[in-house]
């Protein structure tokens, strides 16, 4: 993985930078020894590691503001980090950059049930929000698989999804407000407890901006009341295509399930071995469809989904009888990644989106690629919204296998773009998919995105080396070539 070359000037000023940070964050909030920094050397994309210049853990907004202003004034780069669970290297440290850890911002500030929202600090975990409100029957809808560990601030940065975003939306659809610090140290508040922005929707822009535009210091999330009931249906199919076809058919029939997940035969086997969820081992494709709402509605929808599945050749059709069984059905799915870890030394978890109607052919082509690259692939994914998570199995100790795994991964993502999908589903671009951006975007598209970055961070100091394959200076991007009076008025109808 190629990263921008380290700036020798910054490295030589390390002691001075550490001292300046100690003035801003007194006590143990600045970590500059190797042992202390070790836990921060990578995120969940652990194939890539790098020691940061220094780690700083502020605990007030004023400190975050002072740190960023210092970095802006002294042209020091900054990598923001929530819980460090990014799967795309979004919070991977950079050797000549400060790692700004937001873990100390871990308080729930306010819960407002009548207005159905909660104000939390960015270091609160995703599950922590739901836990804080569950006694009153509420929850926070986005539920990424890492929800026990990942932070809300990181969710905002990556626009995280999860199993239930098919019906309830991604992070971006569940935010009401944020407070953030700009690179120049200014603190701005966007949104609040009301709906929609006056002026440009900068909160929408911030969501999913992968830590490149600002540092979030407070989040107001929308709370939802838990549905009265939820039941899960297990549907086993003799072919992968049958399962994929059923996904498209359920959506086409006008049903939006709470979640609709697919697992292939290998994933089913691993998960069953790991958890014993009662999955049918003979199925080539397994769907878990969750339906929620009032009991009469759930009964009605379960019947319709069963009918659609049988019409598409389902050989197994089991409906959860109680809450315990519903949780068990999901337990296998939720443990699928670690379960697959049992049959391979290493795996690479990919993330891309395709139109649901192309799932059948995408899965078939992936099988073909698996043969070409001589590596196994296991599929466990959010089928309902066409969000693939292929796991490529390999052995990182074999350099040739690692290389083939990377090539296989890139081929899968190119396939996603080719069939009308996009490079990412919910894991972000980070460093992982940075160099593939050109598969989806033209240089003009990327230049426009980089110009937006310049509006927030004119010196490219925030989370450098991520998202964009080729960095261009803001001054160069901003240059406007005008052919004064050289372009005649075009031949367009005018009145």
């Amino acid at each position: 993985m190629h990263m921008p070359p380290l700036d020798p000037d910054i490295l030589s000023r390390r002691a001075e930078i550490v001292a300046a940070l100690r003035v801003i964050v007194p006590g143990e909030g600045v970590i500059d020894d190797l042992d202390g920094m070790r836990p921060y050397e990578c995120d969940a994309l652990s194939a890539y590691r790098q020691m940061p210049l220094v780690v700083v853990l502020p605990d007030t907004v004023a400190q975050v503001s002072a740190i960023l202003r210092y970095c802006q004034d002294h042209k020091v780069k900054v990598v923001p980090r929530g819980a460090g669970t990014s799967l795309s290297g979004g919070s991977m440290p950079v050797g000549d950059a400060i790692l700004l850890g937001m873990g100390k911002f871990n308080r729930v500030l306010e819960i407002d049930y009548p207005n159905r929202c909660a104000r939390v600090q960015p270091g609160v975990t995703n599950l922590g929000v739901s836990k804080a409100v569950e006694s009153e029957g509420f929850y926070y809808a986005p539920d990424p698989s890492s929800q026990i560990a990942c932070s809300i601030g990181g969710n905002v940065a990556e626009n995280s999804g999860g199993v239930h975003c098919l019906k309830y939306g991604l992070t971006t659809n569940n935010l009401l407000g944020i407070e953030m610090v700009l690179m120049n140290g200014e603190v701005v508040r966007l949104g609040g407890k009301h709906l929609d922005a006056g002026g440009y929707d900068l909160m929408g822009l911030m969501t999913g901006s992968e830590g490149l535009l600002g540092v979030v210091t407070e989040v107001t999330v929308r709370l939802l009341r838990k549905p009265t009931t939820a039941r899960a249906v297990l549907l086993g199919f003799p072919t992968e295509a049958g399962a994929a076809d059923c996904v498209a058919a359920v959506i086409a029939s006008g049903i939006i399930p709470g979640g609709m997940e697919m697992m292939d035969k290998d994933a089913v086997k691993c998960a069953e071995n790991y958890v014993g969820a009662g999955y049918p081992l003979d199925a080539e494709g397994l769907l878990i469809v969750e339906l929620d709402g009032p009991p009469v509605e759930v009964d009605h929808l379960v019947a319709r989904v069963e009918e659609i599945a049988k019409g598409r050749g389902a050989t197994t059709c089991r409906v959860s009888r109680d809450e315990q069984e519903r949780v068990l059905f999901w337990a296998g799915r939720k443990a699928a990644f670690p379960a697959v870890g049992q049959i391979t030394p290493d795996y690479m978890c990919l993330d891309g989106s395709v139109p649901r109607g192309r799932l059948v052919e995408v899965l078939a082509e992936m099988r073909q690629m698996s043969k070409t690259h001589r590596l196994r692939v296991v599929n466990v994914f959010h089928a309902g919204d066409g969000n693939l998570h292929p796991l490529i199995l390999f052995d990182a100790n074999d350099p040739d296998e690692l290389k083939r795994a990377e090539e296989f991964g890139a081929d899968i993502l190119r396939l996603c773009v080719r069939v009308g999908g996009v490079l990412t589903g919910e894991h972000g671009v980070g460093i992982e998919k940075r160099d593939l951006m050109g598969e989806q975007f033209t240089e003009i598209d990327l230049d426009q995105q980089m110009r937006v970055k310049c509006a927030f961070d004119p010196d490219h100091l925030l989370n450098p080396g991520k998202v964009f394959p080729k960095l261009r200076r803001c001054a160069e991007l901003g240059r406007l070539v005008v052919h004064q009076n050289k372009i005649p008025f075009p031949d367009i109808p005018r009145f």
Partner: protein
Amino acid sequence: MTGTIRPRDTQELRQAVEWALNADESLEVRGTGSKQALGKPTACKQVLDLSAIAGVVDYAPEELVVTVRAGTPLRDVEALLAQRNQMLAFEPPDLGPLLGREPGEGTLVGTLMGNFAGPRRLSAGAARDHLLGFSGVNGRGEWFKSGGRVMKNVTGYDLSKLIAGSWGTLAVLDEVSVKVLPAPDQTRTLLLHGLDDAMAVKALCAAMGSPHEVSGAAHIKDRTALRVEGVAPSVEARLTGLRDLLSDTGATMDELGTLESRAFWRDVRDVTVLGADADAVIWRISCPPTEGPRVVARIRNQRPTMKAFYDWSGGLIWLALPPTADGDHVLVRAALGATGGHATLIRASEAVRAAVPVFQPQSAALLALAQRVKDSFDPKGLFNPGRLG
């Protein structure tokens, strides 16, 4: 030189922008012009009319997405979706009649540009939540795209969010892809009679915090309305649940069936229920739902003849005020005060709109940031200069 340029395709659109860029002419960008009387008047001599770049590019009902060109009338899109029993879930309002135009004139892209959503905003999200991707020409004359046609649509920055609600000031779109959803089988409405504003909003918030999936929550004079949509047995069960939940309000209750409900919520959506006089100044306020009644009371104190109603569980207030020289912008924004939210002057004479802030004034830091964002798309300020003031 004044006039209207009406490009017929992307190539001509790009040429028109390139011409404006080189000739130093700003452009008033419009679809059919149905919202021309909304926002700050611009001083452009050239109109860039997108009505000829129209038509549906692709509709994939099973993928829940439709792609249309910029000038496509909203009603054409809605009619197309209705054939497959689908809809734009954010319930785009038709503000034409409110703004002195014929009904049904506006375009889908125009609706997106104002980020307008109807009563279902509460449960289904805003217009911006449904814009999956777009392409268009920036102020450098470059054609670019962002987002996609799939549900998890974003790679890189989510420029769709920024474009929705930008009032045509960032880029001139030629095409958008929008998420669609199945239309409900049934729509019924529970009406509570005789509650005052404070009690009504309390009831609305209680209903929204219940598991009964309310998709419309409005209070108009002495009627408090809750909409429930879906398959028949589910609607029935949820209405029963709501009646139980709200029995302690002491209000008398009755119901509207599907056809009556559709008409009722259409009138809420299009602000017809406000019953504003022809010369009234119209404001739209978004605030935390529970604060709605207090905001309204502060204004009513000063303007006892004003009319008002609440949507979005109390968080959206529509006001009709007697005309004044300053559109009462000081009064309205002071009433909102530190509550948090924003007030938009939706209808007033051109002179009033030219003189007072139409959109909620922002802090200096935000204003400067917004200007830098604007410059990143449109460095010479070609598109709708001043419209967002």
